[in-house]
């Protein structure tokens, strides 16, 4: 059985955030990367103006803190709006790289070091 429903297109983006059917504000940290889906899902309901502003901002991947700063809105407000957009299937949210102090990720650290060295 290779259910066609696992083939990707029908996997709604917020299943990436842990399989819940409803996204929650806890899905967003300051450095969660949000990206507008392109194309946007066809919907009867038009997004609100502030939702549209966010969608325009995250046409390219951008961190939650950056959305808040560029819209001059508190992070707490932006997170509510982003939750709406995630629930509507209009954006994807990529969590930050996990940091586990007990088992440091040497590969990641080396990448960061190399990147800084290029500055």
């Amino acid at each position: 059985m290779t259910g066609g429903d696992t083939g990707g297109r029908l996997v709604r983006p917020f299943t990436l955030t842990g399989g819940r059917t409803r996204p929650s504000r806890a899905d967003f940290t300051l450095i969660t990367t949000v990206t507008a889906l392109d194309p946007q899902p066809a919907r009867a309901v038009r997004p609100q103006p502030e939702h549209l502003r966010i969608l325009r901002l995250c046409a390219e991947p951008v961190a939650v803190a950056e959305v808040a700063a560029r819209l001059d809105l508190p992070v707490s407000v932006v997170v509510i709006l982003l939750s709406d957009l995630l629930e509507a299937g209009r954006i994807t949210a990529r969590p930050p790289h996990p940091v586990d102090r007990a088992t440091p990720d040497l590969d990641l650290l080396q990448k960061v070091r190399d990147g800084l060295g290029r500055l």
Partner: protein
Amino acid sequence: MAGSDRAAPAPTAPASPAAPEAVKILIAGGFGVGKTTMVGSVSEIAPLRTEEPLTAAGLDVDDLAGIEEKRDTTVALDFGRISIGRELVLYLFGTPGQQRFWFMWNDLAIGALGAVVLVDVRRPESSFAAIDFFERRGIPFVVGVNGFHGRHPYPAEEIREALALPEHVKVLLCDARERASSRDVLIALIDQLIDAAASAAAS
């Protein structure tokens, strides 16, 4: 290639640009030590700022006791960004200076690679609280001694002793206004993390 009935790897958002993963480093220290200056000197974008009303930040009403203008109080966060290739982005967050905003530091510290504590040698005590904060929570940090007017009256070793820092904590003389100098402080932090990882793996 095994069976033809194998499911295709689940594409996520096919037409969206691939989102990078983010990591963060905190820039801490007392008021006016040069945190925002350092963020700005290495960031690829002009430093950004968010203002969070205290009530929205989830503070107990009791915690607001003693804060004069409760309704208007906001916590400002400065931050900048350094792209590490296409898949990884490093964010730098300047921590809010005032100690009453420490609840914000806790949130900020979650998931951080580590921290830079900036020290102004003319008033090192303004950074003691930041050093204590990271030490107590076991969050790795380096100390950057920001030489105002480019002056470094004390060698790094003397400052380490004065701050009672353990041997593995690097102390660097720096100039937060200089990109290369700020970059070197960040590299020192990463090197310290790599050293710690290597010695943990060896033992």
